């Protein structure tokens, strides 16, 4: 047999075998059964981190010298939802944050009312799930006191953030972004509804007029363009049931890692 043909055949066989292994790898790696098993680590991570952290342990804060020259926006940067555009046209003067669900007193707050609420200013690091970080100074209304005003009902366990930015579809019919946190993070002192970034009103790309800061978790938890906050007893009926737009697409709901 011609050794050259032989070698070519061998190379082809090896390439085919390699492709088969890769395809098999892909199938196992992406299988829902594997995902179910692997997702058990998320619950372990949440419990272990909560055990190691004090309930109110602060995320590290930085100095003005550490602030990143550009706070990189990610995800949606120019929402096209008609309601959002109408509010934007009037510089958000008619914006009202709705707080409802399992609360005693549903609230509807203007930006002026939010600015008058107990606030916190913090220079913190924003960690994207992709791996990069930016440091910025955020000022916003502390979520804890606002929730006390609304009066959470005893059954309330999570807060769901409903947003203006829409995904996977044209404006007005796409899926509005959504995220959720539990009450430990909701009442954490650094958890704020931010209306200022680096001393200016929050730019559109970074979530104007109001975005969440939940500093002990990754960037996708920090919902931008917040429209409504809903207190719920379970996440099962929210979106795909895992409590957030990205969690419903395979990412951890608890994003402390």
């Amino acid at each position, binding site marked *: 047999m011609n050794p050259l043909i032989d070698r070519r055949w061998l190379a082809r066989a090896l390439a085919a075998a390699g492709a088969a292994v890769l395809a098999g790898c*892909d199938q196992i790696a992406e299988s829902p059964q594997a995902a179910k098993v692997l997702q058990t680590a998320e619950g372990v991570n949440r419990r272990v981190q909560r055990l190691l952290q004090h309930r109110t342990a602060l995320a590290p804060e930085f100095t003005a010298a550490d602030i990143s020259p550009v706070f*990189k926006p990610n995800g949606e940067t120019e929402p096209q939802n008609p309601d959002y555009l109408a509010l934007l046209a009037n510089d958000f003067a008619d914006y009202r944050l709705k707080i409802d669900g399992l609360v005693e007193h549903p609230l509807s707050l203007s930006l002026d009312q939010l600015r008058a609420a107990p606030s916190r200013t913090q220079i913190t*690091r924003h960690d994207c799930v992709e791996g990069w970080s930016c440091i910025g100074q955020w000022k916003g209304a502390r979520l804890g006191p606002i929730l006390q005003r609304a009066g959470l009902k005893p059954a309330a366990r999570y807060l769901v953030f409903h947003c203006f930015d829409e995904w996977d579809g044209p404006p007005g019919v796409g899926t509005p972004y959504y995220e959720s946190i539990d009450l430990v993070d909701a009442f954490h002192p650094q958890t704020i509804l931010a209306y200022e970034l680096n001393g200016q009103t929050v730019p559109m790309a970074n979530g104007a007029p109001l975005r969440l800061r939940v*500093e002990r978790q990754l960037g996708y938890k920090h919902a931008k363009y917040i429209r409504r906050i809903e207190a719920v007893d379970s996440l099962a009926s929210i979106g795909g049931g895992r409590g957030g737009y990205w969690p419903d697409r395979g990412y951890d709901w608890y994003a402390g890692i």
Partner: protein
Amino acid sequence: MPRPDRALPNGKIAVYRHPLAIRLTHWLNVLALLVMLTSGLQIFNAHPALYFGKAANFDHPVMAMGARDDGHGGLIGVTRLAGREYVTTGLFGVSKVEGQPTERAFPTWITLPPTQDLATARLWHFFFAWVFAINGALYLAYGLIRRHIQRDLWPTGAELRHIGGAIVEHARLRFPKGEAARRYNVLQKLSYLIVVLGLLPLMILTGMTMSPGLDAAFPWLLDLFGGRQSARTVHFITATAIVLFVLVHLVMVVAAGLVNEMRSMITGRYVIDAPAPAPPAPEPGASA
């Protein structure tokens, strides 16, 4: 538990080299490191650039992989390292996905999952991080309590003084076959110590530093590594060092005798040459 030597029919001796706990933790570690490496490279692909400091200085990465147009509708893979640019088409920056040259940092054949998927890679990485950490803790506990680390890995002063000779012997791929093969040589001891007490714990610490949740619990982690982005870079460099160690380790296993080495890490038994027969004892009464 030390077990007695077993004499083989061919005159050699099968010594009991690796206790069960060491063999189990070794192979579990192989599995965990393989998954962590491949899923880690997939995670890196989501933002293929490394920085030093607290935050990302996007314009000045220490290392970055990307693609650039070749002017004829094709793509050139580019790796930037310490201010210099290298063309790495086919391997880093641009490689084939289903036959098509595609912009991606590490190629499909070394990432888990092979196709671009950050969410799934994170699931694998953080599940096997627990396997890796628990397995490593069990190994260390066993190694210290049973004095495996102190007795078998910690080099003696005499060994360190004669390290030059050991390097020469090793470079010539000359390995002891007889009684001396019962123990690790000084280079093995040092490299294993650096891996189990240095590189592997460093992977865990730098990994923890990247977690915003753990940074709130242990802010000193950030001071230790000079910020989250530095920790991410050290994580990558340390992983590279572990890959280099594994490559050398595999070459040495083959050079020292693939079958014998593999058998010893599977069954525990390692075959050495019997000592040369002792000189005949003097006849009684012949001295005097």
